C-alpha cells in the first residue's frame, strides 16, 4: 500500500471516529462542552498535511457532520470552511509555535468557525447556541494532546521500507 493510500485509510478511520464521538451520548449538562474533534483533525491537516486535504473533503465532511447533528445542511460546513481558511492563512506561523501557543491560535480559529455557525443559527432560527465557546475551549485544550498523535499517524514517509 502506498503511503498516501495508507494515510487516506487512516484519515477515513479518524473521520469515522470523530463522527462517532460527535454523537456519543453525554449527560445533558455536558453537551455544550463536547469538543469538535472533526475540526481538530481538519485544522491539523490544513496546517501539517495540506497535500491530503482539499475543499471537497471539507465540504463533504461538514455536510455529513451537519446531518449527524441535525443542523441545517451546510451550517457546520461553513464553520469548517472558515476554520480551514484561518488555518491556511496562519499555516506557516502555526507550525513554528509551541504546542500551547498553537492551542491558543486553534482556539481563535475554531472560535471564528463556530461563531459563523452561531450566526447561521441566529439567522435561521432566531436563537443562539448555548455556551458556544465551551466546545471551542475544550477543542483547543485537546490540540496539544491530539497533534502529537496525528504527527505519528500521518507522518510523511511513514515507513522506511515503503513499497512505493
Amino acid at each position, binding site marked *: 500500500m502506498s503511503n498516501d493510500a495508507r494515510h487516506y485509510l487512516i484519515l477515513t478511520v479518524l473521520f*469515522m471516529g470523530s*463522527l*462517532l464521538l*460527535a*454523537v*456519543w*451520548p*453525554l449527560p*445533558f449538562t455536558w*453537551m*455544550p462542552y*463536547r469538543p469538535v474533534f472533526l475540526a481538530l483533525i481538519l485544522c491539523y491537516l490544513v496546517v501539517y498535511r495540506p497535500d491530503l486535504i482539499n475543499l471537497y473533503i471539507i*465540504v463533504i465532511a461538514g*455536510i*455529513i457532520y451537519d*446531518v*449527524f*447533528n*441535525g*443542523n*441545517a*445542511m*451546510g*451550517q457546520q*460546513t*461553513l464553520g469548517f*470552511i472558515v476554520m480551514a481558511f484561518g488555518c491556511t492563512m496562519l499555516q506557516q506561523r502555526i507550525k513554528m509555535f509551541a504546542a500551547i501557543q498553537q492551542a491558543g491560535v486553534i482556539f481563535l480559529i475554531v472560535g471564528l468557525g463556530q461563531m459563523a455557525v452561531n450566526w*447561521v443559527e441566529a439567522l*435561521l432560527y432566531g*436563537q443562539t*447556541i*448555548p455556551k458556544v465557546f465551551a466546545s471551542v475551549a475544550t477543542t483547543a485544550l485537546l490540540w496539544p494532546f491530539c497533534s502529537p498523535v496525528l504527527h505519528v499517524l500521518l507522518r510523511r514517509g511513514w515507513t522506511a521500507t515503503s513499497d512505493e
Partner: protein
Amino acid sequence: MFGLILVDHHYPSVLKPIKAALFSAASPFYKLSNTPRDVEAWGEAHLLSRADLIERNRALETEALILQRKLQRMAALTAENGRLRALLNSAKRVEQRVTISELIGVEPDSRSHIVIVNRGENDGVHVGQSVIDASGMMGQVVVVGYNTAKVMLITDQRHAIPVQINRTGVRAIAEGTGDINRLRLRHLSPTTDIRKGDLLVSSGLGGRFPVGYPVAEVIDVEGGPGMTFLEVQAKPLARLSQSRYMLLLRDVDE
C-alpha cells in the same frame, strides 16, 4: 454554501432524499454509540442471582394478575363506551396499533430534544406518527430514514401539543420549553379553572396526536384576575430521558 443552507431551510423537501439517505447511513454510528447502554442493559438482564430472578418473577406475576383484572373491566367499559357513543351518534374512535421501538441514540445537539429509534420506513414509520411510552405521550416522528427515525420529544422548544385538562375539559396548547421536565401552557385566560395536580391529556385537535393519552401534570399555576394570561407549568408524565422502549402509534386502518 449559503445557497445550500437557505435551500435546506426554506425548501426542505428538495434535499429530503439526500438527508434521509445520509441519516440512514448515520444509524450504525448511533447504534455503536449506544454500546455502553447496551452493555449495561445486557448486564442487568444476565448478571443476576437466582434469588433476584425468582423475586422479580414473583413481582411480575403479581403485576400481571393485577393488570389482567384491570383489563377485564376495561373490555367491559370499552364495549359500554362504544354503545353509549353509538347512542349519541358520535363518530367511532379510531383504534390504535403500536409498533415497539427501541431508543438507539440521542441527537447530540443540546438545544433540541430529539432521540433516534430503531424503526424506519421499512417498518412503516411515517413523519407525524405519535410516540408514547408506558406512562404518557413522548413526542412525534419528525424524520424517517430506512431503518431509523428521529422522534422530537414534547419538551423540545419547537414543539407544541394540543391538550385538554382532564378534570374540566378546557383545551390548551402545551409548549416545550427546552427543559426536559417542563411544559408550558400559553394563552390561558386568568379565570380558567386549572389547579396544581390537574392531569393534561391529548385533545386530538390538530389531527396529529390521538385523543386521550396522558401528557403532563400541572405543577405550578401563577397569576389570576388582573393578569393577561396565566403562567402554567406542567411536568411531562412520560419518562422522556429514561425510557428505552417506546411505542409508535398507528391507526388500525393504515
